[in-house]
């Protein structure tokens, strides 16, 4: 039967029909071959929110959200530092928000290649004053400095509001004051849910659910007054169900091993990777890393520790339980020599993330000071410190190359004629995984300092805590976005 059919087919088909058959088969094969071509999803069209502020050098305008300055204590003052590294004057508006009352606006102008400082408070009388600093024409970089009797504090200003904020480290031991400062810069009310985590677990008081923040105003949460007294572990999560806010943390340490004052911007997102360029193992300093995992699943975090002048240690894996705070002190590692080192913390599970802050309590003579610094969620090609770094110390800046390629970098400061390379740091080569310390001189005093690298690096700085404070503080720098609009992981 089959043979008969085959012969019938052979008899019947003409040349043209063979051509047709070939065309049909070729078409089917062609379609199938197109189908077999692999296709990959393009990168996310709109980036995930960065956990830290980003400067967009090419933007036609810039908006900075400063987390807040205490305003009802005459012994405390605050300044907004606005740095215009561009070649043309920039005008702008400062809109100050207070706890109760209307927002006020102030025009300002910054000449080219100039850094100005503006009084943050202007006799506001509010317990805290936060602000939006907007400029038009070109981008500027902004941060805030608080002059406090317990030590000055430099804090970054956020480059955008966010609907989620995290503060990994908190402390209310022995009457220490921790205030979470929430600013709502929008024209509409924001509604928040605030939760915090102590050593005993996560707490979500009813009073902190659905908290309404009026438009263009500030709300301060005193954690001790919110049933979080005498806590050595206190992470805070702020989530806006409606609107976008800016969250900062004002911390006055009064005992139980911590002293001093600090003000810092929260993390506006969790991140799967955190970099710390400036870590220290010393007999006069107690250092620990505070990991806050606000997600529902436990996270495995790999810590890579790279001491200066030595091979990196074997990676250490720690577990960050869900909705808990985990603390890790590398100084307890015997393999880690004394001295400076850098750290990379990576979360194993993609898509999830944590928030990690470094807490360093240093002692110098009779002075003890605690500094809390948020890590950098990404490496970048350009870093800027609007208010500069503390000069005349060996480690005014710490630069860490977390990549696999050598980085060539330049350190500049903003002078009247523009950015001036710091002598000796015109072109510094940094090996992969290596860190270096930059010593700035008086020439850079109060000037904006910038680090530009050909490979992504991470930069930290030492900042003065005031003339009478021998222990220096630490502060992050502002990363600049690349031309694609993001910092690089």
């Amino acid at each position, binding site marked *: 039967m089959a043979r008969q*059919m085959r012969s*019938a*087919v052979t008899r*019947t088909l003409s040349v*043209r*029909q063979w*051509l*047709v*058959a070939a*065309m*049909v088969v070729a*078409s*089917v094969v*062609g*379609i*199938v071959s*197109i*189908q077999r*071509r*692999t*296709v*990959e*999803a*393009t*990168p*996310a*069209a*709109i*980036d995930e*929110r960065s956990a830290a502020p980003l400067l*967009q050098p090419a*933007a*036609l*305008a*810039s*908006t900075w959200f400063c987390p807040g300055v205490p305003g009802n204590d005459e012994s405390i003052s605050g300044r907004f530092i606005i740095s215009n590294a561009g070649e043309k004057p920039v*005008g*702008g*508006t400062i809109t100050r928000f207070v706890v109760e009352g209307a927002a006020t606006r102030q025009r300002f102008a910054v000449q080219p290649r100039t850094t100005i400082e503006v009084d943050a408070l202007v006799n506001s009388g509010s317990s805290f004053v936060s602000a*939006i600093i*907007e400029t*038009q*024409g070109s981008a500027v970089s902004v941060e805030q400095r608080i002059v406090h009797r317990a030590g000055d504090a430099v804090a970054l200003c956020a*480059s*955008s*509001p966010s*609907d989620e904020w995290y503060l990994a480290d908190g402390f209310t031991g022995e009457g220490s004051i921790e205030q979470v400062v929430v600013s709502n*810069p*929008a*024209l*509409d009310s924001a509604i928040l849910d605030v939760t915090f985590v102590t050593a005993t677990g996560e707490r979500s008081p009813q009073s902190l659910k659905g908290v309404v923040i009026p438009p263009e105003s500030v709300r301060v949460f005193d954690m001790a007054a919110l049933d979080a007294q005498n806590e050595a572990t206190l992470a805070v999560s702020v989530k806006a169900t*409606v*609107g*976008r806010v800016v969250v900062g943390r004002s911390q006055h340490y009064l005992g139980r091993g911590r002293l001093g004052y600090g003000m810092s911007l929260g993390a506006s997102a969790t991140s799967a990777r955190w970099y710390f360029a400036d870590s220290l193992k010393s007999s006069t300093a107690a250092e620990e890393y505070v990991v806050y995992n606000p997600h529902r699943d436990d996270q495995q975090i790999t810590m890579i520790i790279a001491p200066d002048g030595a091979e990196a240690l074997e990676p250490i894996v720690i577990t960050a339980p869900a909705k808990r705070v985990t603390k890790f002190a590398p100084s307890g590692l015997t393999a880690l020599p004394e001295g400076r080192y850098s750290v990379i913390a990576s979360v194993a599970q993609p898509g999830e993330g944590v928030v990690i802050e470094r807490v360093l309590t240093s002692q110098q003579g009779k002075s003890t000071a605690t500094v809390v610094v948020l890590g950098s969620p990404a490496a970048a090609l350009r870093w800027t410190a609007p208010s500069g770094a503390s000069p005349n110390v060996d480690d005014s800046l710490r630069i860490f190359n977390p990549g696999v390629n050598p980085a060539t970098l330049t350190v500049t400061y903003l002078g009247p004629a523009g950015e001036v390379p710091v002598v000796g740091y015109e072109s510094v080569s940094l090996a992969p995984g290596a860190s270096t310390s930059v010593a700035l001189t008086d020439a850079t005093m109060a000037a904006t300092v910038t680090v530009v690298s050909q490979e992504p690096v991470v930069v930290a700085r030492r900042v003065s805590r005031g003339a009478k404070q021998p222990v220096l503080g630490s502060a992050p720098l502002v990363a600049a976005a690349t031309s694609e*609009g993001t910092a690089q992981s």
Partner: protein
Amino acid sequence: MGAPAHAAPPVVAVLVVHEPGDWFAESLASLAMQDYPNLRVVAFLSGSTESAIGDQIRTALPSALVRQVEANPGFGPVANQAMRVVEGTDGFFLFLHDDVALQRDAVTSLVEEAFRSNAAVVGPKLVEWDAPTVLQHVGLDADRTGRLVDVVDPGERDQEQHDAVRDTFALPSACLLVRNDIFRTLGGFSPSIPFFGEELEFCWRVHLLGARVLVNPSAVARHRGAFAARMFLPSADARAARHRVRTVLSCVSLSQMPVVVVRLLLQSLAELVIGVFSGSARNALVGLRAVAAIPVDLSAIVARRRTIAPFRRVPSREVTALQLRSTAQLAAFARHRRALREQQTSETPSLRPVATSGSRTTVLLALSLLALVIVGSRQLIWGEVSPVGQFVAFARDDVSMRDLVRQYLSGWSFGGFGAPTASPTALGALAIAGVVAVGRFSGLLTFVVVGSFFVAAVGTWRLSGAIGDARVRLLAATLYAASPVGMLAVRDGRRDALIIWALLPWILDFARRIAGLDRDPLDAVRESSVRPTGARRSQLAASLLFVVSAMFAFAPVSAAVVAMVAVALLVAAFFASSPWRANAWLVVSLALSLIGAFTLNVPWAVQLIGAEWWRALVGAGHPATGASLADVLSLGVDNSVLRWIVVFAYVPVVLMALVAPRARNAWALRSFALVALPVALRLAHERGLITVSFVEPLALAAPIALGAALAAAIAFSGFLAGRTRALEWRQLFATVSVAAALISLSPIAVSILDGRWSQPPATLSQLLTQLPDDSAGDYSVVTLGDPRLLSMWSRPVDAVPGLAYGIASDGAPTLVTQLASERTLMNDALDRALQVAMTGESLRAGRLLAPLGVRFVVVPLRDGTLHARRAALSGDVGVGAVARLADQLDLRRVYSSTDLAIFENMAALPTVAVLDERSALTSAQALEASLLAEALTARSALLPGFDPTIVNRGSLSAGTVHVAVPFSQRWQMTVDGARIAPRVAFGATTAFDAPVAGTVEIRLRASSAQRLLVALQVALWLVIVAIAFNPSRFRGRVRAARQVVEVSLRSDDGARVVL
């Protein structure tokens, strides 16, 4: 001729003779043998009848008066000549065809009954000439639309079952006894009806007079009939239908007329639907055409009504009571069923079937398809179409037809931010459609949506006429109508795809008719072509052009699909065994229709010329989703089982391309090309080989579904042709193909269950009703997100791959927002503002949107349909956009859900606003920095309800009036009559600096060139419509309707019959 004295009333037999055959002698003999004592005969011979026939009459009936008429004016007009040649009003006329043989006592019986019942008209029982025991007519019933139906069933044996004298509505004119005086009073038969319908018209008038029409079965006459065999009359059915409709409208009372007209229309439509699927579409169409010709016949009807008016002596309801309450067809059907039952229980001989079993199956299947569509659409018909996807309102509720016409002629295009250019052609068409729909746009939308299934089915029926008989055509129509494309287009609100799906078979059908590709004998070696010429070709070309142009006007993306179909047919032409000229005509006619469509849509279409022409056709396009071959072949069916069943439809596509023999192979290859090319293109897009904006998959699926349906039809045709032969391998493939195609129909069974083709009850458009009215001033709405979720024509946001935006004014989108709009400087400004917002370059993008009048930014995130269910490769751009917009300081989120987010721009200006001094100063610049530095402020919204197509009036205190419309020198503002020149504001919009207060008027001056072009466009459309519908037919019909047939007697010697 003298008048003999008899006691019996005189009867004059009026014999109308036309080229009779041998039987005529028998007819004459029957007359001669009549036992009636006072019978005289008058014979009228048609002009073409031989004179020997006259001699034959004189021989058989020596006293007969024989007259010959010029030409052949028709039975009625000739019979009326009896009033000329017979003097006196006594007695009766006996009107006879020349093929009637009377029984010996027939006249006597008729006259007796006329006296006994006081009847005006009496007819005999007519039996078959060759079989006198078989009844032919025993009176005729009529329904309200004038359709006549025999009292007897065809082939019914005479068993004296109808032998009672009874009133009847009409009698055949073959043999009629009519009272002389009444015949003269009524003026005889209608002089306008030469053939077909004279008996209905005459008997109806008799009833109006209050006289009786009877059938007397005791009088018997044999009748040959078979008119068609004796004389050829072109379009006989059409004449009969028109005479019937004219008779009805001439005879009914005025109060009954509206109901009768509606009934005529509905009945004709029903007949057409049945006729289309039963293989008698042409016959069915004549009924509808007769109804459609009412306006043409109106003057003739009015004139006839005036003539009849004096004879209306009884109320109309009494006449109506004599008619059937149901339709004539139903009565005939019921009678036939009854006869069949009786046949089963008796020994009577077989009756002729009304229809063959094949045609009955076809009708039943057609009715089933009709029922399926209605059942599947029942919720849409009784409710309304959900405003899902592109199924937005054609126009706002408060817009009248007059407004639409004004907008169309205004020289202002409402799409996007508006532009001082031509309005879309669709707006003009919508105005016409709105008139037809009495302004009920929601009803019009339902009509379009549900009607698309029928349009698609009928189009496929016509197209597949090139492949096979009614059974094959029905299968093709069913497969195409039941393909997932139509259902999914309705479910997801893909209007463009629905239009293309419905009209594509028509386009291909017109093209193949132009190419002369008609059905070939099954065994022809190669396809042949007989191309139409002259008026017919012009008509087909105009029809093709009309359909393509109309489709292009509403769905510009259709141009891309038609072009692709042309390419597919071109490729198939290289392999098909067809005349190359036919293939060339097939492709070239499609290509020329595209050029013609563009021309017919000028001036609106002019904006499609330029670098953005492709974008104007397809908008932001459909994003790549990484769909697999199975996804593409399943045409969007997402059910994991059903999608594989749909793939069965491709079995005949491949098999028939390989094995369809000879002439049939040409269409098999075309079907294959129609499937393969779009599938390959879609896959190439999904796999990143094509990176330009892409046509939405469902629009591309229309040719795929059509190719699959045609391939199945070819298989079925082969299956039918091979049934009579021994089983061979081709027959096996054909059987498998048909079975596979039938299996692929399964998804429709699931889809019809909910009665709305799975349309979601709640849609994104309904959520937009939250947008406020424009009491605080007009505004624009920018919708931003995945282009699949935008219900309007969209442009991509260059800064973010996969993100697109569309613009609507004052809330929800309408038809005009779904068509490409001209790019203006305002679009550039908007692009920049969106780029700033999406990149986070500034958090004050709301201020950049302010001068554009953009008050709301809407981000659709999810639709109730499954249209955008599959994630785009570019990611969930909507969520990202919401995140970026939420960062913006001037945008307030006023609504947020998993489906939609709405942001209000707190910095927005109304469309027409009076600026404060600082904002007025800023408006003179085009600097982003100026806009970002400070929010614009307006002193007031000057003109809430601004309409560029009218003169807008308001009261103004001195200041700068800003209008958020593209700048044009044609803008004109006057303050107390003093004209203020417009200027560019913010580098894109329009402002007027008014130094004084007063009454302000703002208007857009129409461009003369614009008006000229619109006039030219209207003229072109009229020409195309005229050619397509061939109005010369109507001219002839008007003349024919009013024509009174003149009869002249040849060599009249003045002899008369005196009674």
